[in-house]
């Protein structure tokens, strides 16, 4: 195995696969990246068995072959090499020699035979999406995933392909974010998956390298083929991301989205975000809530913690409903406000124990449960 490769391309390729390593104790090879050289490119693959990533980068391959190397250290070395041109060669006993300018490295690798192959699977159900669109959708819901491992069903984003649309949902049991877009879903292709949080993270990192992506899935696993046609640092074809899915039934989210609108107010997104952010500066772990008080054309936002002090913010709004107050965890309000990009949002409230709902004119909904006022 012998090839010449651009340092920055190699580094970019490794950056794509770098985060996916398995536990060293059980299977040492899972901390390695599989490097396969053929024709005009090398293929880089990492996997932790639950999640795998594969990408291709341009290279001048003089002699094909394959080897695996510890991915974290390799990535660090490649990034630091002095010269853009890197010569890479592997001996049959898996020792790799790297040469770049005056630098020479010899690295011990492991043969490719032990490396578990990424499962490929037929197109059970497959859809093609715009990368930019999925990026925006994921951003607007991903923050609501649960990180509580005891609620593993909620540790991911729910993808629901059904009734002529794709809906993405995330919830941690206290707030829920939902967004959807129209999509042609043939009846026999309808289906849903819960994509694990870690995969969602990786997917978000991969997106926006090209126009389209293809998602295919069955009950146990999902795969994404992410086109890299907009990438200019060596990636070719597409990135392949394989993942197991969270198995189980996602809670019935439709049921918790309030059907009726009680009081609806239109708010300037950034202004509201700033007010809540400032008010929350006095919050503490023990008293982590901001109180929203609605009265005629006025929104007051207050927060306090007994040992520190209090904050009071006010915003002029258009409101003519009854006076009411309700308290929320400030983070739950800030997350959707930060994730959205529209200038205006709608916020719907009813009373101090009913959920607050953010909406935009696009199909976005974020339901937030209040903190009970004592």
């Amino acid at each position, binding site marked *: 195995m012998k090839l010449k490769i651009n340092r920055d391309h190699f580094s970019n390729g490794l950056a794509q696969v770098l985060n996916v390593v398995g536990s060293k104790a059980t299977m040492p090879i899972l901390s390695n990246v599989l490097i396969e050289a053929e024709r005009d490119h090398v293929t880089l693959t990492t996997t932790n068995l639950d999640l795998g990533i594969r990408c291709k980068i341009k290279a001048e391959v003089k002699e094909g072959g394959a080897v695996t190397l510890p991915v974290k250290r390799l990535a660090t070395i490649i990034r630091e090499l002095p010269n853009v041109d890197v010569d890479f060669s592997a001996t049959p006993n898996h020792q790799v020699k790297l040469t770049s300018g005056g630098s020479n490295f010899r690295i011990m690798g492991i043969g490719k035979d032990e490396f578990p192959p990424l499962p490929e699977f037929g197109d059970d159900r497959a859809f093609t999406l715009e990368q930019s669109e999925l990026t925006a959708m994921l951003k607007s819901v991903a923050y609501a995933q649960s990180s509580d491992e*005891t609620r593993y069903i909620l540790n991911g984003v729910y993808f629901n392909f059904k009734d002529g649309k794709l809906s993405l949902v995330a919830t941690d049991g206290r*707030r829920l974010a939902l967004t959807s877009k129209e999509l042609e879903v043939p009846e026999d292709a309808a289906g849903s998956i819960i994509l694990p949080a870690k995969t969602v993270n990786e997917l978000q990192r991969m997106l926006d390298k090209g126009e389209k992506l293809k998602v295919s899935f069955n009950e146990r696993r999902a795969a994404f083929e992410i086109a890299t046609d907009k990438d200019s640092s060596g990636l070719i074809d597409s990135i392949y991301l394989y993942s197991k899915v969270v198995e189980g039934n996602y809670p019935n989210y439709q049921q*918790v989205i309030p059907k009726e609108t009680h009081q609806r107010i239109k708010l300037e997104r950034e202004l509201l975000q700033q007010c809540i952010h400032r008010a929350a500066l006095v919050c503490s772990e023990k008293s982590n809530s901001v109180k929203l008080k609605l009265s005629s054309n006025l929104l007051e936002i207050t927060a306090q913690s007994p040992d520190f002090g209090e904050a009071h913010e006010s915003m002029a709004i258009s409101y003519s409903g009854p006076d009411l107050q309700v308290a929320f965890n400030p983070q739950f309000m800030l997350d959707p406000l930060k994730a959205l990009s529209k200038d205006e949002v709608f916020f719907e409230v009813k009373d101090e*124990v009913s959920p607050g709902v953010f909406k935009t004119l696009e199909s976005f909904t974020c*339901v937030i449960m209040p*903190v*009970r006022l004592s």
Partner: protein
Amino acid sequence: MPLTTIVHLDADAFFVAVELARRPELRGKKVAVGGGRRGIISSASYEARAAGVYTPMPSQRAIKICPDLILLPHEGDYAGVSRQMFDLCEDVTPWVQRNSIDEGYLDLGPCGLRSPEEIERVVRRLQTRIWDELKIPISMGVATNRLVAQIASKLRKPRGFVVVAAGEEEAFMAPLDIKEMSGVGPKTQTRLRAQGIQTMGDVVAMNDSALSALMGSGWREFRERCAGRDDRPVTPEREAAKSYSHQQTFREDIADRDRIESVVKGMIDDLMAKVRADGKRMRTLTILARYGDFSQESAGRSLPEATDLETAFYPLIQPLLAKAWRHARPLRLVSVRLSGVDDSPAQLGIFAQQDEKRRRLAGIMDQLNAKGRGSGLVRGHQLHTMPPPNTLAGPS
């Protein structure tokens, strides 16, 4: 010379005192508070003590020893009276350390009192006030440190008032029997007495090597204490329940699982009403099962989040009871403990919006039950514990 600002306050036969405050006609009689036929005496009046009743003693034995004993069930609001008692103490000084429901320390250091006489006047006034307002007799010890104050308060019960002047600590301690020192159990006593050590003074007089041979590594501290020296500060802490518990001893050992489950449920209902009244939420339920031979086992489990609703704990009852009650033998007692207090504002759950209805219902039940104690509003599973309903009122 340091001032004698440390006070140990110890209520005399507290549970009995609380009951007698409710029924003064029983004052001067042989009264005890305790569980019924199979329970245990938890407090006895001094008249009853004179007849040989002590705590803890099985109620049955107490009645045998003292046939005219008036045995009262636990009915009074002990925690409430205790709180009032310590509130009165806090009128005197902010430095109040509650050790238990009926006993604690005060430090009058920050009160700006200048002479021992002044201090004594203030403490006596407090003793009188607690009696006048709550009808709880108190014994008090006043000294320069906690240890001496504590021993002094026990010296002339009931209604004792003992002041140990500054500089007199060692002389005060010297003639006292070693059994008065807390931490000296029967074994240590036997060991000490075998060497001819009877009093605190004897301990102080011993040479180092002999004492270290007897008492081991803690010998220096032990001698300091026997000499009446102690530098532990009075540490006031905010009173906050860390757990709520309830136990029930059955009249006869029972093996009926349904019945025990229902008893457990009933106890949880009672406790959660208190939890709600305190504005708290709880996370952990522990169930203890005790067999007829007093062997016991317990099992506990936590909810993902603290709750103020009893219904959230119901699903844990069966599995916990199965774990705690593993032997196929009847139980003498079950107890329930709720711990893991959370008193921060409650974040409502998105998939638990039904809970808001349950909470409203619980609030209404709590209110009705608070108006007249035992208004008799219970959940369905406790119906069998209620007296049979009156026959429908006919024309009268």
